[in-house]
């Protein structure tokens, strides 16, 4: 048992005991879906269908369906790719890095954040795949598969290829980490399920879990090592994404600050999305006692920290452009601020650097409506950051004769909106069929002076017999 300061607010409020946690978290799974869920799921599925239709249209028509031109070959799609990968960073940060730092407040938000990671990475991976134009032959371009041309292998010196390895490793390791964390909770659902089909499915997925101390012992070691592996992994992924740009010589991309700057931005945008999702989920699922105001407070603080880091990165980039004495580099930054895409630059600054500073006020951190609004600003701002970096740098590089402007077509905008459909379709399915809060980890946070019920445990909630036992070792 780790030591916890008595001043610190409890992470599970409302005097909830173990059984209350099971009941509270599993209630939405065991009920029939209500109209709100069906409507939200239906809407997401429709948006997803629209996105998929436009992807099919892109394959049919070719990349010419998009607004790209000879000068600007990367725009909406790569912006969206980096945007979604960035969002996917908070999940592993919460589940792995905060586990290593023993930040136990992560216990109630890690499940949803990891789910968010997986769905966001799915959305992200779509874009490079679509951008290939013919992804069905793309396997030969991104994987070292023997072929009839030599074999002519993929180029391992290219950051684009490193990205393939980074993203696919990140996705599969996150998926395994998430599934491993789900097993004990799937067993809880199995043991409570009344429906035969549900019992069979959750039973098969829980792999015969029985809560033995021997298994728990190994389980905890595996979780810890996975966290240790995922921590450098999550940092490597956005580092490598930033290499896609930083190893080139395009003014505005060719900077050594990119890896830490991208990682900070990724964590920032990821926490923005976690806030967006958690504000809604805790309210709709009545999980306010597990995802408490102090959880929301902690996330808001991370948003201020990473938002400010991103702000410093913008300033540093600007300073170095001036200090380098390189005309092209200097022009790239002046162009960002006052060029044809000035509005995207200032949208980025106001959403990423200015609005999150409101979180310095405790009143704002504890106001869920304001938190929600600011988190939406963060999401928007981080999308613009990637657009600014990618599109404005390409629009005006070394040769004025090659300068061009880029406007997305309805196909690109539609595919981007469609990925929100993909993301939320998966998220709503997750929220309906899997526990959104990691029950067994939250149970470890219950203080020993909470409910002790020596009788039946069907009616825990009403019998709050607070015993005087202070800690585990003193109980009798």
């Amino acid at each position, binding site marked *: 048992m780790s030591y916890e300061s008595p001043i610190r607010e409890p992470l599970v409020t409302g005097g909830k005991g173990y059984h209350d946690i099971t009941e509270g978290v599993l209630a939405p799974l065991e009920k029939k879906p209500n109209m709100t869920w069906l409507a939200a799921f239906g809407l997401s599925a429709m948006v997803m269908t629209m996105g998929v239709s436009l992807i099919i249209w892109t394959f049919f028509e070719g990349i010419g369906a998009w607004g790209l031109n000879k000068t600007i070959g990367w725009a909406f799609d790569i912006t969206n790719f980096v945007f979604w990968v960035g969002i996917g960073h908070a999940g592993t940060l919460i589940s792995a890095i905060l586990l290593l730092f023993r930040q136990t407040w992560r216990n109630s938000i890690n499940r949803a954040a990891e789910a968010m990671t997986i769905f966001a990475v799915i959305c992200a991976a779509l874009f490079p795949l679509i951008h290939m134009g013919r992804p069905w032959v793309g396997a030969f371009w991104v994987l070292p598969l023997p072929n009839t041309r030599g074999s002519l292998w993929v180029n391992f010196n290219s950051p684009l290829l490193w990205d393939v390895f980074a993203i696919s490793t990140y996705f599969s390791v996150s998926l395994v980490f998430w599934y491993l964390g789900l097993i004990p909770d799937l067993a809880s659902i199995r043991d409570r399920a009344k429906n035969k089909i549900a019992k069979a499915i959750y039973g098969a997925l829980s792999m015969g879990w029985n809560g033995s101390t021997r298994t728990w012992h190994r389980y*905890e070691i*595996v979780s810890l090592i996975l966290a240790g592996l995922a921590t450098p992994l999550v940092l490597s992924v956005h580092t490598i994404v930033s290499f896609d740009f930083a190893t080139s010589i395009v003014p505005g991309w060719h900077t050594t600050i990119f890896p830490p700057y991208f990682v900070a931005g990724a964590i920032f945008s990821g926490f923005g999305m976690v806030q967006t999702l958690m504000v809604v989920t805790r309210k709709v699922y009545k999980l306010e006692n597990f995802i408490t105001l102090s959880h929301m407070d902690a996330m808001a603080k991370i948003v201020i920290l990473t938002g400010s880091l991103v702000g410093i990165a913008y300033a540093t980039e600007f300073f170095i452009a001036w200090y380098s004495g390189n005309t092209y580099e200097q022009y790239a930054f002046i162009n960002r601020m006052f060029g044809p895409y000035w509005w995207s630059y200032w949208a980025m600054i106001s959403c990423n650097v200015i609005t999150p500073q409101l979180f310095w006020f405790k009143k704002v951190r504890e106001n869920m409506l304001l938190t929600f609004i600011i988190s939406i600003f963060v999401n928007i701002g981080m999308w613009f950051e990637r657009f600014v970096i990618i599109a404005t740098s390409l629009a005006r590089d070394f040769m004025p004769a090659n300068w061009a402007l880029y406007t997305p077509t309805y196909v690109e905008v539609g595919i981007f909106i469609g990925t929100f459909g993909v993301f939320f379709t998966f998220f709503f399915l997750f929220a309906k069929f899997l526990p959104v809060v990691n029950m067994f980890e939250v*149970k470890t946070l219950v203080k020993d002076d909470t409910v002790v019920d020596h009788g039946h445990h069907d009616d825990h909630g009403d019998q709050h017999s607070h015993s005087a036992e202070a800690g585990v070792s003193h109980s009798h």
Partner: protein
Amino acid sequence: MSSYKDTTKNFLLGKFHKPGQVINSVKALQGEGFSVYDVYSPFPIHGLDRILGIKRSRLTIAAFLFGMTGTCTALSMMLYMMYFDWPMDIGGKPSYLAPAAVPVSFELTVLFAAFGMVFTFFAVSKMYPGKKPVIMDPRVTDDVMVLAIEKSAIEEADQDKIEGIMMSHGAFEISEKTVHNELFEV
């Protein structure tokens, strides 16, 4: 069925509501010289593994070995493809360069270590999709901790004493369970 080894075991189960009660109960039983088979709980009880005398798992070593396999796979794959099989001369730069090999070798190290370790964990814990679980009490995955004592390991006469120890440490229920022909976790 004759080749099928009979692994029927009878257990005496003490059921608790709090992790502290289980820890104290296990300590008291061990103090009296009784051996505890296992404890089943809805969440990991820290320190209990050591009290039960469970040796530290060697999964960490497995993870390291799998990780090294990943590193070697990545490095040798790239060396073969980029240097031996199809070297490319791009502006006179070396076709196989150590710094450029770092990202892919790192990713494959993590990939191999993570998957290798998780599958080893499933194997040593005898977990697989669709396995029929040995459920000591269905509430074990909810809010009940079950202390299991194998009946063949104790004297018939001691049973009352064991039950007394468990009750005095807060067991709210004592029961017995027979488990037939199941794979037991070792």
